[in-house]
């Protein structure tokens, strides 16, 4: 088992990939997932976090098998 990490939109471009897999146990919070998956890059202040497709805070706990996603503010609907 492991933690599946996803990046979207401008964060995907900034990090240079859309997915990353971490060994379980290496990270206990979403912020630690970010640090390990990005090589300790700074997290942009407006970054949103989702754990298993639910919005979460960066200090929320993660566990084996979780899917952790990082993305910028969402901009759906019309324009």
């Amino acid at each position, binding site marked *: 088992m492991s933690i599946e990490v996803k990046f979207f*939109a401008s964060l995907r471009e900034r990090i240079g990939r859309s997915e990353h897999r971490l060994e379980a146990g290496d990270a206990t919070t979403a912020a630690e997932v970010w640090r390990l998956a990005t090589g300790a890059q700074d997290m942009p202040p407006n970054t949103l976090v989702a754990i298993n497709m639910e919005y979460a805070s960066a200090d929320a706990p993660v566990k084996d098998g979780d899917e952790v996603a990082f*993305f910028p503010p*969402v901009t759906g609907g019309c*324009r």
Partner: protein
Amino acid sequence: MSVELRESGFDPWQALLDYQQSRPALNGTSGASFGATSVFVGTMRDFNEGDTVSAMRLEHYPAMTRKHLEAICAEAAQRWDIVDSLIIHRYGDIRPHDPIVLVAVWSAHRAESFPACRYLIEELKSRAPFWKQETTDDSTRWVEHNTPG
């Protein structure tokens, strides 16, 4: 209630008609319980923040987007007495004048359908994980915030 995410273009009025005809609660085969239909269609403009926009790419997080759109529909059904609701949202490459989103709510009276329809589109815009990347004359840029309603 129904949520559809589609990459190809669509005609929201035809989609509305097709959906209504496919549902017993809406096509007259099981009575006539609704008296109000509120519809919102969002279409791509050719300008944003003072610049001409020639194209747009809409990225999404498929499973999370679907999950949250379904949750928003369920919340609307709890808050208002509605017969049915429908959301269709595009992703991928979009051109000016293309419909991007269709939101429709059916209810007995407009007092339910109007606020429920508004709720669906506003919650969609603030919660569903979509991101717009637009092409202007000078550049390609990510849209960092929604326009006010």
